[in-house]
């Protein structure tokens, strides 16, 4: 009788010790180090770079509106392109303040709403924080204001000089740039304030942890904003072959879609490899995480397979025209090849990598078998 008591007691002790919560345990990879590298060497420097490019853009916009001429327009256009390139490095970080203020929607919704912009200009009243204003602001709206108002540069400049609404045009241009500045200032201030530590301290592996959110955002951005937005939609992937040359990124400038795509691919690969911004040093990353877990697929480490595929993407993309509008019309197959190359890496990231890292695409809370 004593024996059975003991047995039953031992059993219940064991039972109560093994937790019944379904939170999966972790793999001991130092996620704090990973998050610290992301924050200090990638996210914050990239944001600050974009912030400084937007700062230059703002200065040049002020110069241009004060004296709209060809020289100032050229300088402003250059600053706009630099800001656009810098933005390619930060679009994937939809977390914290950027998520809160919908940075991506306020900076890069294209094609931009030309009619809406004209309405805004003539009315002079608009609230950029509203959902309905997302497609009338940001870098695509600036593209229209700097490159798309007319066919020749002199005609464009005339909108800011001789047009009866010239003051309003100048005002809208100024407001667009200011809005970009206000948003990025908020984000940088937040990261340099309390958010960095908050981000790093969320080092668990629940669905709301920083790592899981970042990985999900990263892949989603690659899938929706790079693969589909920059290439898939213009190439008619989602419209059963109906081409949309007017839906390329920076349509009015037109000859920079390839440059922007290339920048975004570099930004993506660098994030995967944990490469410091503007330095060749690599820190803790998804690559080192996979290597730590010893993830080998078909006799090759998965991180190598993914990096090789990035190489393939670059090779395929090298064949593209600077203008995707022309590319779509002349030889859309090159666009489709680019799409397929990116799609393959999305499968590697979203399926093979997520499986290895034990990160679910979303939270699944139920018993396993």
């Amino acid at each position, binding site marked *: 009788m004593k024996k059975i008591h003991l047995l039953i007691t031992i059993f219940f002790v064991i039972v109560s010790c093994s937790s019944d919560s379904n939170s999966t345990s972790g*793999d001991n990879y130092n996620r704090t180090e990973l998050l610290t590298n992301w924050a200090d060497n990638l996210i914050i420097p990239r944001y600050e770079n974009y912030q400084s490019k937007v700062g230059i853009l703002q200065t040049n916009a002020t110069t241009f509106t004060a004296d709209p001429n060809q020289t100032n327009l050229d300088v402003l256009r250059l600053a706009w392109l630099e800001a656009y390139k810098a933005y390619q490095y930060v679009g994937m970080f939809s977390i914290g303040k950027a998520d809160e203020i919908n940075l991506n929607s306020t900076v890069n919704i294209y094609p931009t709403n030309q009619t809406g912009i004209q309405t805004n200009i003539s009315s002079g009243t608009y609230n950029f924080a509203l959902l309905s204003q997302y497609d009338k602001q940001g870098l695509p709206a600036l593209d229209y204001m700097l490159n798309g108002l007319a066919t020749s540069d002199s005609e464009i400049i005339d909108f800011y000089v001789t047009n009866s609404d010239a003051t309003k045009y100048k005002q809208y241009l100024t407001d667009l740039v200011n809005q970009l500045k206000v948003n990025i200032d908020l984000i940088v201030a937040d990261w340099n304030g309390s958010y960095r530590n908050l981000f790093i301290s969320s080092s668990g592996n629940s669905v709301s942890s920083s790592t899981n959110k970042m990985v999900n955002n990263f892949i989603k951005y690659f899938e929706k904003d790079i693969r589909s937005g920059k290439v898939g939609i213009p190439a008619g992937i989602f419209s059963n072959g109906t081409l949309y040359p007017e839906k390329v990124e920076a349509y009015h400038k037109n000859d920079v879609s390839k440059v922007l795509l290339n920048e975004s691919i570099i930004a993506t690969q660098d994030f995967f490899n944990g490469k410091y911004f503007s330095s060749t040093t690599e820190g803790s990353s998804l690559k080192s995480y996979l290597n730590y877990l010893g993830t080998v697929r078909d006799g090759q480490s998965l991180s190598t397979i993914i990096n090789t595929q990035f190489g393939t993407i670059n090779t395929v993309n090298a064949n593209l025209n600077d203008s995707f509008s022309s590319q779509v019309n002349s030889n859309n197959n090159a666009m489709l090849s680019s799409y397929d190359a990116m*799609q393959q890496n999305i499968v590697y990231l979203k399926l093979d990598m997520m*499986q290895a890292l034990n990160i679910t695409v979303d939270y699944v809370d139920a018993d396993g078998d």
Partner: protein
Amino acid sequence: MIETYLNKKSESITLAFFRLAFGLMMLFSLIRFTSYGWIEKLYIQPNFHFTYFGFNWVKPLGNYTYLLFFISGLSALFVTIGYKYRIAIITFFLSFTYIELIDKTTYLNHYYFISIVSFILIFLPANCNYSVDAYQNKSLQSNDVPSWTIDVLKLLLAIVYFYAGLAKLNSDWLFEAMPMKIWLPNQSNVPLIGNLFHQTWVQYTFSWVGAIYDLAIPFLLWNKKTRNFAFFLVVIFHILTKILFPIGVFPYVMIISTLIFFDASFHKIIMNFIFKLVRIKASIFNTDNQFKQDFNALGTKIRLLFLAFFMVFQLTFPFRYLLYPEELFWTEEGYRFSWRVMLMEKAGYAQFYVIDAQTKQKTFIDNNRFLTPFQEKQMAFQPDFILQYAHFLHDHYKRIGMNNPIVKVDSYVALNGRLSKRYIDPNIDLAKQYESFQHKTWILPFNDDIKGF
């Protein structure tokens, strides 16, 4: 000889113990399931359910699902105390099985196990002692039962373990240590042993020991000499799996179920202990009545034949995969209901699109719109899910005015540490394919070989 065996007697307390333990565990499981909010999450929220082939008629009951769980729980309670036992166990079997049939997304081998056990219990005189029924009706009460009524449960447990062990005898499990190689490193913050999980030899050890354990445990439990040691192993093994994997109540169900292998004297001690807890004298169930088994009665004959047939079915059904070409792990044709437990790491990616046959307008499907994350996860690597979902999309888009929707999928699957590869023929119109027991020819070949069971 068969008759001698069928006439062999065991003490009724063993069967009563199992009835009580099973009923209690079921009650606890159902309460746990409900308290986690899973009824809402798994059976009420989804606006579409993946049903089993031939069971399309099983529909979710909306808010009445709670009532179904209540009925199931109440019948489990009645089974526990042995009150109106026959009706209670039939009700439990039907209600529990109905719940499981609503959505195969939640399929687990241990739910299937519970359905089978409760089904077998319908045919056993588990209320013939230590039950309200026996207390109220002394003519029902008996001190013994035919041994086969206990052996049939032991046999089922033995099948579960042994077949789970057989399934592990494959080249991935034994020679690649897959999926342990993927799963163990993800658990390395387990205290004490966690750091070892990155070691290859540990991964192989877990694989081999797991396979040997499953194959050997039924024999070790059946043999009186090794029984105590075997039960010790059962406890260690299941607690370990409980710590490592999110497998809910399954370990406890198995640990407690294996107690049936012990002698009646052991069950007597436990029953006395339980009766003491609820302040009932177990001695009121002492009786000299013998269980009457009339082999000439048609009912007995049918019951025995039916159970015999059922057990033969249990022995053969898991081998039905042999009737299909292609790799079982890849196509999963004949995978379920075969005690293939924690056997592979498989995940998928499925991008569906629907094309209007006339306008050629192409719509990309955001799975989140129609499926819960859990359903999407399960759907992405199981062909029958993919097919059923494709038909659901076809019907949905037809209803909202699309002409003869064509449904195609870009689908990739990664299995046991292999690089992902395309899974479903991307050119096939899934809306024109139909579920059957035939091999699904639109699953692309695996182009690899997993040898073994």
